């Protein structure tokens, strides 16, 4: 019987499904993994004043700040994906979202033009001292489009270290990470959407992240949580979009949804957001598998990618009425 554990973090619900012989031992390991997710939440939640990213924002414009190595690695990944995606993923969009009326929290000090506040070149990373700096006061990090995945990566490491190898985890249903599949199965099957004929991702020791242009409400696709580049509710610039195109400063009109499978949940999280925001699939690293939805009825596998998706033929739920015999 699989053991399920859950916790609230990063504005959503994380859930773990673990299988193994001894429930007490499984629970103890699972709680350690949940603790890891909570620690990630405390460090990377931009909406909590006592988080590390809030501390970094307060120190923006000053000297670099020493951070823990995991936060440093996450920042490194953020900068890397931002550059490789040509800015379609961007962890600095808080001031832009606020200007567009998509965030109603207190603004930071208005000290520099918006374009410099959201420029990732303003982030400096010093691996020797494990320090992060932001060049301008008013710059702020919002890791909502990557932190869930990063938390799952850390939780998975705990499970593996403690000898639990058969597990499936998800954060807010939009990012999932699978270890070994259940006994007798080749993979964990995860539906991309709620529709009976929705595509399936086949996961074994891989991660999956799904981003959707539509808000959760009315969307058939599981979507990411309501922070950062992925925002909830009505976008005045594009009223049906859920993710911001940073270059147009409006809701994205590119893809309806994108699913990315790869070894790191954090990377999948970031790249799925980048794709929906407008990034070209060819810019995505080759070790990631892509499935995109350009229109309501079609899903596209990126050519040349290893196939860990299964797309069923679209079958109408009820047969069409036959012609009348007259």
């Amino acid at each position, binding site marked *: 019987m699989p053991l399920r554990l859950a916790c609230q973090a990063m504005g959503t619900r994380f859930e773990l499904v673990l299988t193994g012989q001894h429930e007490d031992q499984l629970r103890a390991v699972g709680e350690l993994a949940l603790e890891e997710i909570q620690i990630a939440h405390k460090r990377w939640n931009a909406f909590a004043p006592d988080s590390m990213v809030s501390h970094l924002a307060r120190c923006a414009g000053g000297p670099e700040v020493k951070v823990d190595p*995991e936060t440093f690695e996450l920042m490194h990944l953020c900068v890397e994906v931002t550059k490789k995606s040509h800015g379609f993923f961007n962890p600095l969009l808080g001031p832009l979202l606020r200007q567009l009326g998509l965030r109603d929290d207190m603004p930071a000090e208005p000290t520099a033009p918006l374009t410099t506040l959201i420029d990732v070149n303003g982030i400096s990373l010093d691996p020797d001292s494990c320090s992060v700096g932001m060049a301008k006061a008013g710059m702020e990090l919002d890791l909502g489009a990557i932190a869930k995945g990063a938390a799952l990566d850390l939780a998975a490491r705990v499970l593996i270290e403690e000898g639990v190898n058969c597990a499936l985890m998800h954060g807010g249903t939009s990012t999932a990470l699978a270890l070994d599949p259940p006994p007798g199965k080749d993979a964990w099957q995860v539906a991309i959407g709620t529709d009976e004929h929705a595509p399936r991702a086949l996961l074994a020791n891989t991660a999956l992240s799904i981003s959707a242009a539509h808000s959760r409400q009315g969307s058939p696709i599981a979507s990411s949580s309501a922070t950062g580049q992925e925002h909830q509710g009505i976008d005045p610039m594009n009223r049906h979009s859920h993710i911001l195109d940073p270059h147009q400063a409006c809701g994205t009109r590119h893809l309806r949804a994108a699913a990315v499978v790869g070894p790191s949940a954090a990377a999948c999280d970031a790249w799925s957001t980048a794709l929906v925001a407008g990034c070209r699939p060819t810019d995505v690293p080759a070790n990631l598998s892509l499935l995109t939805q350009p229109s309501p009825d079609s899903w596209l596998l990126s050519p040349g990618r290893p196939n860990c998706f299964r797309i069923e033929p679209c079958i109408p739920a009820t047969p069409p009425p036959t012609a009348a015999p007259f």
Partner: protein
Amino acid sequence: MHTSNPSPDRRTILMAGAGGAATQILPDFLAARPHLGAELRVGLVGVGRQGRAMLAELGKFDEVALLAYCDTDERRLRSASRRARGAKGYATQESMLAAHPDLDALLIATPTHLHRKPCEQGLTAKKHIYCESPLAHTLADCRAITAAASSTGKVFQTGYQGRANPVYSLARSFVRSGAIRDVVSLAAQSNQKNSWRTPGSDPAREKALNWRLDPEVSLGLPGELGAQQFDVLHWFTSKYPVRVEASGAVLAWRDGRKIPDTVHAKMTYKDGSQLDWSATLGNTYNGTQELLMGTMGTVRLAWSHGWLFKESDAPTQGWEVYANRQQFHNDEGITLIADATKLASQGKLKKGVGLPHPGLYYGLESFFQSIAKGSEVVCSAEEGLRATAIAIKVQAALSTGMPQDIDESDLTSK
């Protein structure tokens, strides 16, 4: 005895905002970086849960360098190495001290029953010591640590964090200035959902890691969760209970454990007032909080936040027009914010809501300030002993089923 109308600190105003009337309380904590004026080299003893939390906070101090850490558990050492870049790990405190004789201070985050030896060793080696709470698991160990601390002249701070918490400091000044008048009731709870089990790769390691569930050495929920809260309430009221009753049971995690996972305790003070304390590992509702109820209001404390709920007949103060009010069902609270006048003038009042760092940060900051600047230690070994002694009594009441009287001599270091 009544005090006159509460006179709020001039630095404190109540925020105006949407919602109800809880009063939230904070001081000048918005400076992004602490300045100690001296470089400090520290070592960390124990890198389990609490040690790991310390690692996260230490990085925020520009002038503090973590040079080394130690733990007897190899996996934890490995895990710490990922979080403590640049610091070196050791299997024992002895080897760490031998390799780093230049350490200024040690942070002790070993299991509670293993505090005494590292404290004594560190003090003998002339190191300043920050020891996690509770101070120890027996009164004898508490007294031995206290004696060692008093003999060296080095800074010794017990990790009762409420005393360093800016929200709590401000709330205390409110209570002590008579804002809620006569305190008629005290209550505290610590609710969480967690089995307290730690996985172990073999029986010996599992037993060592699960010390909190070992009745031979554990102070149970009263020690590991309650002691912090007992200290806060003693600090606010300057009084200690004279009698304690407690009951508990294993209700949430029926896995053969002996340490109750749900506990209720009643502590009685000399003046007849009481503190009701409860804790459980089976439910998270309302988390961890303390309540001080007085004839003119109630202070509710929740570590990063604090509120004042006024009685209807409490006098209105001029600053209340600025108050941020928050609704809690039928009650309105006011959010007290220290340095709020300054923040309001800068249009940043809302930035004062919620502490910018976890409680542990403030405990460490005050410790480093005591070393670097000679500022007063917020919680000495003697104070740490008193709160720990109460927790030991609660645990004794729990394990024997008998009320425990608390004599003044139980709370002293001799």
